[in-house]
């Protein structure tokens, strides 16, 4: 048998070094309790699936094992994927994350989509919270890392949208689950797709070089943003059709915003004024419109431009939140706010990445780009037939709700940046100051 104590010890060192393991510093081993261990393959290379608990969270690790000589080629260049040397019934072995092993990835795929016929596997280094493997540039398997008790929202929502005929999600072709919990899901792979953030950076790079009006620059993003707005509205209509809609809860939403605000140490913006805005929402008579299942973590990195238009990915919500919060209905304007914030980030990242820093001309161009992109996105969103039913009826109320979600999102970003990238904190802080002084882009045009 595999030495479970040793494996737990090795995983205690391995987990903190993984990008998807979002707690604690990378060099500090954690206390790991081995939950279940299932053997998926009992000959070389060995494959086992381990579920381990760290505190309240349950994590899934798929462990591949080969004799050290055979493992060398697999783990070459991927030291972070090595778990460590361990004794097995077949002999001494090197254990590693099995998703990097093309041969074992095929075995994993059989668990999720047994009838898929593929030849090649490629480990994808993209997702922050899960692990993806691409097969024949045709299928993509997402191995979930943090396990929930219920169905994974990505699987649940993605599947329901597909069944509801929403065309802009990749089709689900397989699912691996056990005792009601999703372990992995297999989608069609959108070959040739590029994520929205990269598309936006390409546009901004061009604009900075050409200078001037973003409408005249070649890399104009507005038509794409317009279509993205349309797809976003269609997403919300499909979510409402699949999961229903209920009355929004103004008081609860503002309470949550206030609670979030209380958790973030904000310096450089007037906390009292922010609080005032959230309390103002609570006290107002604003009709906040319906609440429905939403994307929950909507930004440019979650949408993919392909030859047949935009696709929406990853319905897991913000993975750091508990499941019941992630699946709780909310206003579709929360997704809209997430995307609008993302346009601001794109401008700022482009200024940094392309070395424009604080050059006034480039900064002005980025601001003009953001405004143009946001307005095209909102036009596309609001011009979509039927979307009005999912929003507050009055245009002023839409503004109030959208502004509140924009502010809430920016507050969340401050917390995130302070924890992960302290020198980026000025981006959301600037957004907060702007939101407090100006009005947000106005969702007024209604079809």
């Amino acid at each position, binding site marked *: 048998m595999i030495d479970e104590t040793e494996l737990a010890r090795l995983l205690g060192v391995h987990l903190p070094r993984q990008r998807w393991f979002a707690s604690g510093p990378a060099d500090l081993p954690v206390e790991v309790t081995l939950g279940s261990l299932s053997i998926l393959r009992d000959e070389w290379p060995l494959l086992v699936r381990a579920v381990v608990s760290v505190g309240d969270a349950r994590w899934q690790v798929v462990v591949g094992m080969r004799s050290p000589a055979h493992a060398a080629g697999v783990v070459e260049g991927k030291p972070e994927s090595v778990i460590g040397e361990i004794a097995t019934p077949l002999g001494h072995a090197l254990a590693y994350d099995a998703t990097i092993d*093309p041969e074992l990835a095929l075995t994993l795929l059989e668990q999720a989509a047994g009838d898929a016929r593929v030849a*090649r596997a*490629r480990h994808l280094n993209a997702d922050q919270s899960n692990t993806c493997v*691409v097969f*024949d*540039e045709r299928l993509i398997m997402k191995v979930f890392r943090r396990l929930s008790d219920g169905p994974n929202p990505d699987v649940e929502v993605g599947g329901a949208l597909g069944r509801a005929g929403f065309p802009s999600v990749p089709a689900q072709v397989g699912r691996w689950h056990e005792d009601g919990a999703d372990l992995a899901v297999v989608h069609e792979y959108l*070959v*040739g*797709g*590029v994520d929205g953030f*990269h*598309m936006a950076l*390409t*546009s901004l*790079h*061009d604009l900075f*070089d050409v200078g001037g009006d973003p*409408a*005249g620059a*070649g*890399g*104009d993003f*507005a*038509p794409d943003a*317009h*279509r993205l707005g349309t797809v976003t509205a269609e997403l919300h209509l499909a979510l409402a059709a699949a999961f229903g809609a209920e009355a929004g809860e103004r008081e609860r939403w503002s309470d949550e915003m206030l609670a979030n605000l209380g958790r973030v140490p904000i310096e450089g913006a007037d906390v009292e004024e922010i609080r005032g805005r959230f309390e103002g929402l609570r006290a107002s008579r604003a009709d906040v419109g319906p609440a429905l299942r939403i994307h929950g973590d909507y930004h440019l990195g979650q949408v993919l*431009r392909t*030859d*047949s238009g935009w696709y929406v990915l990853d319905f897991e919500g913000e993975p750091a939140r508990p499941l019941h919060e992630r699946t709780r209905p909310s206003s579709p304007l929360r997704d809209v706010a997430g995307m609008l914030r993302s346009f601001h980030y794109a401008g700022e990242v482009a200024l940094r990445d392309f070395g424009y820093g604080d050059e006034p001309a480039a900064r002005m161009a980025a601001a003009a780009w953001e405004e143009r992109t946001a307005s095209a996105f909102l036009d596309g969103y609001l011009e979509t037939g039927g979307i009005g039913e999912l929003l507050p009826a009055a245009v002023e109320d839409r503004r109030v709700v959208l502004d509140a979600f924009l502010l809430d999102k920016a507050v969340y970003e401050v917390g995130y940046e302070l924890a992960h990238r302290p020198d980026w904190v000025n981006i959301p802080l600037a957004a907060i100051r702007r939101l407090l002084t100006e009005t947000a882009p106005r969702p007024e045009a209604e079809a």
Partner: protein
Amino acid sequence: MSLHDGDARLRPVPGTSNLRLPGTAVDPDPQWYRKAVFYEVSVRAFADADGDGFGDFVGLTEKLDYLQWLGVDCLWLLPFYESPLRDGGYDVSDFFSILPEYGTLGDAANFLQEAHRRGIRVIADLVVNHTSDQHPWFQESRLDRTNPKADWYVWSDDNTGWPEARVIFLDTEPSNWSWDPVRGQYYWHRFFSHQPDLNFDNPDVQDAMLDVMRFWLDLGLDGFRLDAVPYLFERDGTNGENLPETHAYLKQLRKVVDAEYPGTVLLAEANQWPADVVDYYGDGDEFHMCFHFPVMPRMYMALRREQRYPITEILAQTPPIPDGCQWGIFLRNHDELTLEMVTDDDRDYMWAEYAKYPRMKLNLGIRRRLFPLLDNDRRVAELFHSMLFALPGSPVMYYGDEIGMGDNIYLGDRDGVRTPMQWTPDRNGGFSKADFAQLYLPAVLDPVYGFQAVNVEAQLRNPSSFLQWTHRMLEVRRQHPVFGVGDFQVLPAGNPSILAFVRTCTGPDGLPDTILAVFNLSRFAQPCELFLGEFEGYTPHELLGRVPFPPIGELPYFVTLAPYGFFWFELQTEPPPESSL
């Protein structure tokens, strides 16, 4: 001194040492058009041998060595038939004779023979839908209602028929019907009122048009580009476009040329969306080729937006075509770009994309040559040609683009892109010995694009000229039939500014012939990871320099491209020879 002087031709010019020797015959493959590079040329604009200010067949014949050296396989001639020239020669007044300025039938026959001797085929424009109102057929038809040709055109006592048919030249024509005072009836015309439509319901007309084609094929033409094909028939309750009767007649034409003139190519001008144009291929029994109109504007759009999607989207929307058929693709031609082919959905898309770029709109609305459209950027011109030569379809070049000729936008209508070919820095650019004022159109004289700066002679002498580069590209393309006949597969690339695709076919040796092409649509240098899993173990050889690149391994293949850079690779299975590493 111009190139057609024998001495100039034989003078060793740097870069021409590998000049292709005159072939004795054209490519015998009946599907030659799938591998061919076409070159669109106007007889009037190419070379004037008799000094009357108009190009002619003798002049064109003298330039065949140049065209052979350049590496084109088939010339496409704009109309050269007898015509009052009220519509650029598309208003034919006699199908059996040529415009006197262009020479004699004998000159044309000699030209065809000389072209074939150099392995070059020739196709010509033919308008079947209508004639000039000066054509004797119409003159006879209009006399009364009983003459033998009374029913050769479409006559009516009133002007209310077929209201569903749109008026194409809205700017000049109020209706598709015009009154003829001689016959006292209205006649039908889909284009100008001086171009009455022939009545293809009349079997005599159908036969007459077949006889026109036989006449020119007997003289040596290798095919036709048939102009305005969707409009041959009229039927109540329809818009008169793409009718089944039209397809039936076109299939009959095809049957005749296949039986009597094998190897002849029929190319359709149907300025419509690819999904609609494919109908003109029939089941492989109608046209051999159709133009793919939207690829070209999409290339400009992709360049402006620095992303591949405008191109890959339209290719993804292009349906497969029957075996033996081929698209014709081009960067620019003698016409302006129109959006008349778009469907409603796509028109929305085009408007959303175009209407917001003042520069694009301007460029697309007007009639400009390639280089001015590209701001005279040599790098982009190379990028565009490398795409044109590698995308699926047979490339159709436009005369003068191989030296980067400019235009004269003050000439009005479409004449701005039909100025004389620029051969030398001498008088009239070497096009003609006539007085300047005698030229059919003034040669371009501006300091950037004028013949003193841009001409064949200078570029032949300069090994790094665009002309020499084009020659080299066509030479490489010729060595790889896969560019013409291969499958086409877009490769995923994480960088949106990169267009990458693979073309594959089975080579003559039975082994796969595979080309990988990678293009950078951005003005910035770009890195790119390509996922080439199925080609693991292959070695890419860069085609222009024969440079072996690192073999394709398990990991994504990494390439770096210069601004507007491109690579054509051949994927080879054997390891690269040591000596060349």
